[in-house]
């Protein structure tokens, strides 16, 4: 029982980080109908960035989020402008998947040329410390901070989407792109900002990911398959769904690791994905696309 609760706590804490990563990906899908296969690669890129800022300049990984977020936002806008904007409308959905896959390879290639492929980890003064809670449940500081920062950033994202004019434009585009354009929303700009915002969420989650796990340039493959499971479970395009699914899957895989075995725990992501596709292909909070059966 003790191990189970410990697994549960770790699962919620890790799930929060997945929720942040996945919210960006699902936002991008909502705004542009683009399945961004490069999300994992951008997370890893941010983790490397944090690593460099920490080792070169001694900037604390959590503080570096303030630097990496605007940077990733800019990179996201640039990537949208160069690679996604020129796609022809009639096969944009199909091609965008391949473009983002190629983008992921490009980022992986750049990272492995710059940093080689050895595994890196960010070890600061508190990265191995933990405190004890109640009946001897150990809670690592980085996980706790990571969780709270993720939740805080999700709240910021929620605020931006709900309360600002820009957020309204994004939500309008998600709901009905044509009507939004007719009502004066500049769809190209909204898409560019939406993509930038989605990539920006990878900055913070990358810093936290780098603190939690060792990573190399190939790590984005593990990450993207998990993120895709989360996003599909939550329902493509639903940010609330992504948050809920992120935490749920975090808990399930963490408990599976304790009860079953760590090597098989990543299979839980795929089992969840399979079950979702069998019984509810639109995900928990997704809407059924026209005619998809």
């Amino acid at each position, binding site marked *: 029982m003790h191990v189970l609760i410990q697994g549960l706590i770790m699962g919620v804490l890790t799930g929060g980080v997945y929720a942040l990563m996945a919210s960006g990906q699902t936002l991008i899908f909502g705004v542009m*109908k683009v*399945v961004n*296969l490069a999300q994992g690669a951008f997370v890893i890129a941010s983790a490397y960035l944090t690593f460099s800022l920490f080792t070169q300049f001694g900037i604390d990984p959590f503080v570096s989020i303030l630097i990496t977020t605007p940077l990733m936002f800019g990179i996201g806008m640039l990537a949208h402008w160069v*690679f996604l904007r*020129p*796609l*022809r409308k009639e*096969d944009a*959905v*199909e*091609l965008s*998947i*391949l*473009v983002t*896959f*190629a*983008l992921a*390879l*490009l980022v*992986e*290639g*750049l990272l*492995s*040329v710059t940093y080689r*492929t050895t595994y890196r980890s960010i070890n600061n003064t508190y990265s191995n410390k933990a405190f004890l809670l109640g009946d001897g449940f150990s809670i690592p500081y980085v996980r706790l901070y990571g969780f709270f920062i993720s939740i805080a950033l999700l709240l910021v994202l929620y605020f931006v989407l709900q309360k600002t004019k820009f957020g309204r434009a994004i939500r309008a585009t998600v709901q009905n792109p044509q009507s939004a354009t007719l009502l004066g929303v500049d769809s190209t700009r909204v898409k560019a900002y939406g993509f930038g915002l989605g990539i920006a969420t990878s900055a913070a989650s990358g810093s936290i990911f780098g603190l939690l796990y060792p990573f190399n*340039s190939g790590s984005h*493959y*593990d990450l*993207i*398959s998990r993120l*895709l*499971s989360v996003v*599909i479970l939550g329902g*493509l395009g639903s940010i609330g769904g992504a948050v809920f699914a992120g935490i749920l899957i975090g808990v399930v895989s963490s408990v599976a690791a304790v009860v079953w075995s760590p*090597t*098989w725990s*990543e*299979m839980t992501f*795929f089992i969840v*994905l*399979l079950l979702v*596709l*069998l019984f509810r*292909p639109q995900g928990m909070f997704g809407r059924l*696309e*026209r*005619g*998809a*059966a």
Partner: protein
Amino acid sequence: MKLSTEPTKLVTRNGLIRGGVFIALLAALPGIFPQHWLWNLMFFTILYATMAVSWNYIGGFGGYPSLGHAAFFGIGAYTEALFFKTDHVLHSGYEPFFMLPVIGLICALLAIPIGMVAMRTRADVFAIVTITLLFVTQTLAFNLRNLTGGAQGAAVVQPKFDVKFFELPFYYTAAIMLLFAFALSYYYSKSKIGLSLTAIRADEDKAKGVGVRTLQVKVIAFSTSVAFTGMAGATWAFYIGFIYPQFAVDPLITITMVLMTFLGGRATLWGPVLGAVILMPAQQLLAYYVGGSQLYLLAYAAIFLITILLLPRGILPTVTNKRRLKALALKSVAAKASDPLAEGQSA
């Protein structure tokens, strides 16, 4: 490839000539260039051409971009490794080749339930499901140690072929597979299945509305497609002799197939072959010059992005389109020249 609604003849004289030249070329190539490194290159080119041609069934004609074909490449490779462990006694050395149709069948049957689940979604989610399938297979290959040997890898028994001609049986096996894959591609392009796939790609709801059996056609295309991929994987495993999970189930294999198809021209008959003929030698050259460094990833990504952005339809359709436009332009010039009125106007 032109798909018209009128019934087209399956066998035409021009088609027979083209096919004959293609077969003759495939058969004669190793004789024309009798060097080992070239034979090796030819084997890989033809093997990947087979995979690209078969990826095109579902990814090109059907418009369902599968990113999980490498999973079936790995399944084929590991099935071969399981059937022919190192303690297996080979008599002629050709037995593993005779196993290929069985492996193809296994992959095709495996693809039916997977396809039925994955095809419940649309092209974008289908891509997600197939890419996850790839990672599931890779995880399984790492973790099912009793079957696959895990990270230590699995050995395949080696044939006692004459060292002088070691590559040739592999090359001709790949060539035969390419011919079969190509013939099926040709058949699809001329038959109701191909028409249905094109209709699905254009507008699946409408296709369903007019009575196309969408699920059935998609599953047929997917299943035949991965059958060839699995056989290619098995041939590769036999040729390489030792397989590891990270190379047998590699996202780069998928990317290579997709890139070849897109470069040459998807949903065309010759596009994937053309793509393979261009890309595979380029890849080997690149590997030779930049060696172990990760620059090849950058080169791959760059070629991919440039292809999609500048040649979104691929080489073949772009070239044929240009030629058609040129012919039209010539015709109108000729028409003008023979028309005194038009001459007078332009003067």
